[in-house]
């Protein structure tokens, strides 16, 4: 990865932004939704030149991804090309849907350069134990394994079912389901040669209680999905992986892609900072009471996501997460988000379950 200065990163982002705005708001290339939106509001091609200008857009409404037919998001250039329909993680009710063609390959090919061959040896198989189904992650992990010359085994976990069980206080059933998932993974590990693992932290913990995952061949774990606060990260690194297996926590979702974390240093005290795959996505930590304002460094705020690809434009979407804003850190020349947790975690209990 080329190391940019902050100014270079800013220039790169602004140039990319102008290109994406021009793409989505030009009748020759844009999608029906944004063209119609521009006709009722303003022409972003004239007003949006820098990332600061994106604040002129209102917050992207998640209802638009639930209520509208996916075709409204098809850019003219892609018209007639079948698209993938990806749905968000643990949502109950009508899920948010994002369509796509190649974005996930771009995101995960780039991510491949950030993981170590020692932990994910090229050509040796992966196992994904986690939400597959209609999620982008399913294809993305397989692609990641493939670009590294590897294949991938899959064990599915339906996070919507888990969420329903926990909300209905059916804890025994939730536990039995988790065991069912973990048992399948243990079986695959016993009978197949696998070195790389993608899973959620809770499932990783449960699997490691059942199997010595190092002895089973696992050398690298790529994790995502739920809150990973510092003590929990330390627990995973020291107690579950016993400092023998590479750990790659990530923050991501169907709408953004994947924000990789920087390797932990002793002074981080296990606080993980994630950096968005800029310029394709931009994360900002905002004051929840005045979302125009970015909070100070090392301060909590709500996560705001702007996605900027030719396949999908989504300005200022307020995630259901809160995080600490962190300073740029090499190799990333832009702000990071740390200790991500559900928005309002301090005020109310959030159902995260095993996912």
């Amino acid at each position: 990865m080329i190391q940019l200065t902050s100014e270079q990163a800013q220039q790169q982002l602004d140039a990319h932004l102008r290109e994406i705005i021009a793409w989505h708001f030009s009748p020759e290339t844009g999608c029906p939704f944004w063209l119609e939106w521009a006709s009722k509001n303003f022409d972003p091609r004239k007003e949006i030149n820098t990332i600061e200008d994106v604040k002129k857009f209102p917050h992207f409404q998640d209802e638009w991804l639930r209520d509208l037919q996916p075709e409204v998001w098809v850019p003219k250039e892609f018209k007639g090309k079948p698209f993938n329909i990806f749905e968000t993680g643990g949502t109950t009710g009508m899920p948010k849907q994002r369509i796509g063609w190649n974005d996930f390959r771009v995101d995960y090919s780039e991510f491949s350069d950030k993981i170590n061959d020692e932990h994910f040896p090229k050509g040796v198989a992966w196992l994904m134990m986690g939400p597959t189904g209609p999620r982008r992650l399913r294809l993305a992990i397989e692609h990641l394994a493939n670009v590294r010359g590897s294949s991938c085994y899959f064990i599915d976990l339906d996070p919507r079912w888990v969420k329903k069980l926990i909300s209905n206080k059916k804890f025994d059933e939730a536990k039995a389901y988790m065991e069912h998932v973990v048992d399948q993974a243990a079986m695959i590990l016993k009978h197949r040669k696998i070195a790389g693992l993608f899973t959620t932290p809770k499932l990783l913990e449960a699997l490691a209680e059942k199997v010595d995952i190092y002895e089973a061949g696992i050398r690298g774990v790529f994790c995502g999905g739920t809150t990973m606060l510092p003590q929990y990260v330390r627990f995973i690194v020291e107690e579950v992986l016993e400092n023998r297996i590479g750990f790659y926590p990530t923050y991501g979702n169907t709408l953004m892609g994947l924000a990789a974390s920087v390797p932990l240093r002793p002074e981080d005290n296990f606080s993980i900072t994630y950096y968005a795959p800029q310029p394709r996505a931009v994360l900002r930590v905002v004051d929840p009471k005045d979302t125009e304002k970015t909070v100070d460094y090392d301060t909590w705020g709500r996560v705001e996501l702007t996605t900027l690809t030719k396949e999908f434009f989504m300005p200022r979407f307020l995630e259901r997460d809160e995080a600490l804003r962190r300073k740029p850190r090499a190799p990333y020349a832009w702000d990071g988000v740390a200790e991500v947790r559900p928005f309002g975690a301090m005020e109310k209990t959030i159902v995260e379950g095993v996912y």
Partner: protein
Amino acid sequence: MQVPHLPVLRLGRNYESLDKLEIKDHRTGEVKAVVSTINAGILRKDFRKLGEARAALKKFTVSQLIEMSAKAGELFLNGTLPLGDKGHTQSAEEYIATLSATSGLPHVMVRRNMAKIHYALTHLGEILNGLSRGLDMSILDAGFGEQFGTKLSFFPTCQALGLVMPSNSPAVNSLWLPAIALKTPVVIKPGRDEPWTPFRLIQAFIAAGVPAEAFGFYPTDHEGAAEILKTCGRSLIFGDKATMAQYADNPAIQLHGPGWSKILIGEDQIENWRDYIDVMVASISDNGGRSCINASAIVVPKYAAEIADALAQKLGPIVPKKNDDPEAKLSGFANVKMADFIDAQIEDGLKTPGAVEATAKYRNGPRKVEFEGGVYLRPTIVQCDSFAHPLANKEYLCPYASVVQCPQSEMLSQIGYSLSVSAITKDEKFIEQIQAFPEIERLNIGPVSTMAISWDQPHEGNMFEFLYRRRSIERGW
């Protein structure tokens, strides 16, 4: 100066977590210590080492462990012991002052609790003799032997004794003390506001020569507590009615819930009720009314109004005093919301017809008061016209009791489960009925406080029988 840090004790290994709780002075908010807390996953991992923890105790004989326990008792009562892992130490006086500051228990009550723990530790030989009905403890060392003209063999029922402790009264720690002499490691989740006593006891045991591997001190969350209860094989849990219901059918878990302890006065003694007022007052208010063996109901065949008034005259005027005042009788609330809840519940109950608060006119002020920054609940006596009244069979963390009038012939059908009962009667027939009544755990006959404890008799279950089972054995050689 840095405040003390109490680490997690992971069966012989100190562990400082990144997650910590602050333990504060209930009046000033001053942080007295920080306590490392961990998730259930760490417990599950450490439980794989319980065999080693047990092996560390197995090296000693029961007799040696009884001696070490006695030494630990002296160290607990008088010694200066390590407090955490940052070089702090704690003398007995510092323990008293700190526990008092964070729990609200006055010094005088902390001392009484210490004395109970000290007694239990220094009399373990007698206690185990009582609980095992005179078993020669060398039979436990060897695994088998002969005594009482028969072959005997015992085996442990668990890898460790799990403890989910409360915050309300330090003396409850005395319940687990026999486990060490019985070669059983302990895995303790301390109460949120009271890590001091289990930590000091563990330090005393270690200083007395018991291997550190035998002790787990795990401040953890609900999931961690559930893991302790599930995995240890034998556990004690302290909690409210709802918690008790959750584990009611599990023989591996000994429940210590509300006591609903009572004093019953028989028809033969009721004319002498004035002679028993002091026993009733002590039963209601000793230890600040915080124990499950504090009387929470006085059941009488007549004179309920007069008895309620006499108790109110003695208890109503009691006010909070300084923590170190030897006359202090009330405990402050470390959790102020708990005081708010209790006060509101009593007030709500009084709205139901059939109950009169007898203490109100002697208190000259509200039940819930602030004193030197702390929150206290003053004693409350409520005369109820029957057990059907919502305040008749309630237990609160303060000196609280109902006085219920009920014919002697109906008492046993009305009182329900009662941890400790003092029956003030000489009526042999009534005594026989009470003795046969299965819902009473601890029974005193005569004017004895419900708070009276005999350590060599079972308290909500026999710890020896809980930790060991007898098996039949035949040896060919």
